[in-house]
């Protein structure tokens, strides 16, 4: 981070390579659309680059970035869910399914509301504690716990 703030492209690249894979994956697991996940991860990194000079190095970079990624992914999923209309990318979605959605866990995850998917991704992919997730999503800790529980119950039912 220090090197990137000083203008080092190689340090920025190291930061990017370290954080992109999980950010992109987290976005994808919430939105289930690879193009949208790419946009979300890209926008989060652009926001990070814009804020680079102001970033407090005493704070960890990961939670800051993941907060943007997951909140944008939830917003995107809500916007898509709210639209009572024909989804355009039926073909694209079926392509996605053929390459990854045959996995039962993922299909079960897809059946959950986006807010529940986000909590599960933050907990089980990015390994934040419920307290940290509550901070990242601006939610009461009890809500995080209940979403985790309901999400996991629902996944278990589907997988059974």
């Amino acid at each position, binding site marked *: 981070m220090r090197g*990137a703030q000083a*203008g080092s*492209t190689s340090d*920025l*690249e190291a930061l*990017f*390579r370290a954080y*992109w*894979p999980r950010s*992109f*994956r987290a976005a*994808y*697991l919430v939105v289930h659309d*690879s*193009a*949208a*996940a*790419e*946009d979300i*991860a*890209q*926008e989060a*990194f*652009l926001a990070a*680059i*814009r804020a*680079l*000079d102001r970033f407090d190095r005493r704070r960890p970079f990961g939670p800051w970035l993941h907060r943007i990624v997951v909140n944008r992914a939830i917003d*995107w999923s809500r*916007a*898509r869910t*709210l*639209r009572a*209309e*024909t*989804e*355009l*990318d039926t*073909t*694209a979605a079926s*392509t*996605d399914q053929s*390459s*990854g959605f045959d*996995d039962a*866990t*993922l299909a079960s995850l897809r059946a959950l509301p986006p807010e529940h998917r986000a909590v*599960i*991704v933050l907990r*089980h*992919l990015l*390994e934040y504690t419920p307290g940290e997730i509550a901070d990242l999503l601006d939610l009461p800790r009890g809500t995080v716990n209940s979403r985790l529980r309901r999400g996991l119950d629902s996944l278990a039912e589907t997988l059974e």
Partner: protein
Amino acid sequence: MRRALEHVEIPDEHDARERGWRVAQAAFGERQPVRHRDRRRLVPAIAIVVAGAVVAAAISSPGRALLRSIRETVGVRGARSALFSLPASGALLVHSDGGVWVVQADGSKRRLGAYRSASWSPNGLYVAATRRSALYALTPGGEERWSLARPSVAFPSWTGSRTDSRIAYSDKSGLHVVAGDGTGDRFLAPAEYGPFAWRTGSLRELAYVSASEVRLQDVQTGRVIWRANRGPAEPVLAISWSGDGKRLLVLAAHALRVYDEHGRLVRRNDPAYGTTYADAAFVPGTHRPAVIRSHGAQSDVFLFPGGPVLFHGKGGLQQLTWSPDGSWLLVTWPSADQWVLLQVARGGATKRIQAIANISAQFRSQSFPRIEGWCCAQP
């Protein structure tokens, strides 16, 4: 659970990472270094001092004379006081505070209603117009054919033929596409805000700009055909295809980019400090754009790259629109309250200039009206 989530196969994962890195690298290269902050802090202070000096000058007697002389030299002398006719065939679509208007070649005007933006259908048979919460299809006579309720609708863009057409538009959630008869509304991309440009003659390929890049997307399948770096993340002022669909022009205040049909950058220009772009459009039948550029109190219209200058004026020129036959260029000049019509020769020289004054009053508008399109001759 963690292992399952980590092993989910994501389509295009590797390419997405490399594209992401290129975008991040470009944004990093364009970021302002911290040391410029002090200079930026000075800008408002300088602006206040300059504004104070202007006000002081204006309230003095010599100052009033100077401002009067400046005002008098803005605008084409001998401009017509009213719009009697257009010099070329076709009809203009105009937006003003008073609503959306259709102006026929004989100068007659019809107000379609209190819409916020509008766009011609490909053959000028209909107009797509927006209000805050709905998209409308209208006849040029103002009759409503259909409407679609959507929040914060903007940037309608219509493509196709007499038998099959589509409209791209944005709403609060992002970019949508709907058939020309108002059916089959589809969500295409999140958080994308126009303007949009259909590839010339295509029903499927739509170009638009996201926060970080330019994309060409197939609206039928959702597949992104290509994506390219767009330069500084500024609002897009213009995006349009050349007449043969082989070049895409994207303009922002500090960046002009031209891409080929495969998304390769073929021309770029980032203007010198203090110079900004306002609008651009390809000269019909060519791959050269005509561009409005402003520097201080001066603006000009020139052919990129290298000129010639087609028109030069004081104050800000705002928009340019080619007539359907490509022989006339309409340039809007808000500080003069004029439309300037330039007859442009094939070689790129200005042959004739016509000007029409009192534009705002003619469209019952407090602010200067905006041109939404100059379309084909009415059937």
